[in-house]
């Protein structure tokens, strides 16, 4: 066990860094840039039952210190992913967190059943927070009861621990977290993107074909930190934190807020090497503040030096 290792349900990671879902495809592309076995784990792009083409383009737009995306859950379908995408990740021998989505409860359940049965999948990330699809996604993610019901059913269907990915577009993130905790979630992923929009001032037209999109990147980090801070004090589930992380300092800030592991999304587009570079930088920062094991960082903002959440 090295000083960077963290352990969460189903995810025994040699460091707390994993790419965020949708920002790393199924790993293949980035494997041309560096050795993926350096990562703590990988979150793969959302899987749905059938293949989906997603939204029309343009699908991305730039905003100040952030970006909007409206990909619309494009993916080749769960069977195809299991057959063609997952095997390529086997050699790296790192935990895989499979993000799953659907339009109906039945779809979520079936995708979970199939993908959680893959020996290559370590845990499932239940995406009830995608703002870019008409059905499913965020409609589950903004109603406590639907979220809890879905969590319960997905949990039943899953052979692996289930992380519920929360939407920040809610009035009360703590109640949402508590609802899915009660429904049996093994962990939380937070946050997904904030719903945003950009218009061309000349024409008045939205830049994105889908009109609205999900805001990610450093712009949203303060919202992510606040939500993780609030939720981690009110639930006893480990949290995979994300939202605007782009430096090793950001990782430690987010762990201090209460995260046990940290996912990096948009920053991969800025710098394809960002994940290994962050991992490399962590030990020196820990030295600077005299912390031996990174897992001690979790929740430092409110629980000074007590047992970190990530080792429970």
């Amino acid at each position, binding site marked *: 066990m090295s000083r960077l290792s963290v352990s969460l349900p189903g995810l025994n990671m040699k460091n707390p860094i994993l790419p965020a879902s*949708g920002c790393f495809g199924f790993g293949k592309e*980035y494997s041309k840039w560096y050795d993926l076995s350096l990562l703590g784990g990988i979150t793969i792009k959302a899987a749905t039952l059938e293949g989906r*083409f997603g939204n029309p383009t343009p*699908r*991305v737009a730039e905003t100040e210190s952030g970006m909007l995306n409206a*990909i619309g859950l494009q993916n080749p379908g769960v069977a195809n992913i299991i057959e063609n995408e997952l095997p390529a990740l086997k050699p790296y021998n790192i935990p895989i967190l499979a993000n799953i989505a659907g339009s109906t409860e039945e779809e979520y359940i079936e995708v979970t059943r199939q993908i959680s049965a893959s020996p290559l999948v370590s845990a499932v990330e239940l995406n009830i927070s995608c703002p870019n699809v008409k059905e499913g996604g965020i409609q589950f993610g903004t109603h406590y009861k639907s979220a809890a019901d879905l969590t319960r059913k997905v949990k039943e269907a899953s052979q692996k621990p289930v992380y519920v990915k929360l939407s920040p577009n809610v009035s009360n993130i703590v109640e949402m977290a508590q609802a899915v905790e009660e429904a049996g979630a093994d962990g939380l992923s937070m946050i997904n993107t904030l719903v945003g929009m950009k218009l061309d001032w000349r024409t008045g037209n939205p830049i994105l074909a889908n009109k609205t999109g999900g805001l990610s990147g450093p712009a949203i980090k303060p919202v992510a930190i606040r939500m993780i801070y609030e939720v981690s004090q009110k639930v006893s589930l480990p949290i995979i934190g994300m939202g605007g992380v782009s430096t090793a300092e950001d990782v430690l800030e987010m762990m201090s807020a209460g995260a046990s592991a940290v996912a990096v999304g948009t920053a991969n*587009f800025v710098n*394809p090497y960002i994940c290994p570079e962050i991992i490399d930088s962590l030990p020196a920062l820990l030295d600077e503040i005299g912390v031996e094991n990174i897992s001690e960082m979790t929740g430092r903002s409110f629980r000074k030096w007590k047992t970190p959440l990530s080792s429970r």
Partner: protein
Amino acid sequence: MMKHLLKVTSNTEIARNIFEMKLTGPGVGNMTSPGQFLHVSIGNHTSKLLRRPLSICDVDLEREEVTLLYRAQGDGTKQLSEKQNGELVDVLGPLGNGFNMDEVDIKRSALLVGGGIGVPPLYYLGKQLKNTGVQVTFILGYQSLEDSFYIDKFKEIGETIVTTADGSFGIKGFVTDAMEQSLKEEPVIYSVGPAVMLKAVEEKADSLDGYLSLEERMGCGIGACFACVCPTETRKSGYVKICSDGPVFKMGEVVL
């Protein structure tokens, strides 16, 4: 496929809002396939996160120098235009797949059709085709005389027909209005420009013997984020990613 810090050796306005930027560094050695692009960072730690895809316009392998031509239109390219000699620019590349030049054997001619800021990659392509002995004709469409650029340089490579939308220079009209004559030789067509232009070029062409280079807003630039997809009828998946499957596609392959 790598990340490089290249040094600006020149960055000058060569037409209204059009800049020619030359960058040097060891990474340039791999930039040998016309049609590939660089994914250019605007600056570090600033509010502009996304990189800008810019086509490779020319490469001088001896001097390890790559040339980009870009229009300063939005905030990012405007900031790029302020870079001074000696400053470093962070680029990913070369990315994507360049033009297939295998089909044009020496006996055939090539017609290179570019619109506006789509013309840069045609320069490097034309140069290489000419070197292999192919006869190259360019049709370049601009908005107006003021917006035109690089015409003399294109002329050094081959016959160069210019169209302008306002008629202030060359033939008044669009590139397709100037294609008729050149099509007689049944050339291989290479075209870069906005989607509507590519569509018109494809319709105008008698055969589907040619290549189109597409543009789309990009996130990652390397095939991971699905930002830049385009539907196709010929591929099993039903779509291609412009950044990694393209930006160059065979005519008829993608749904424009």
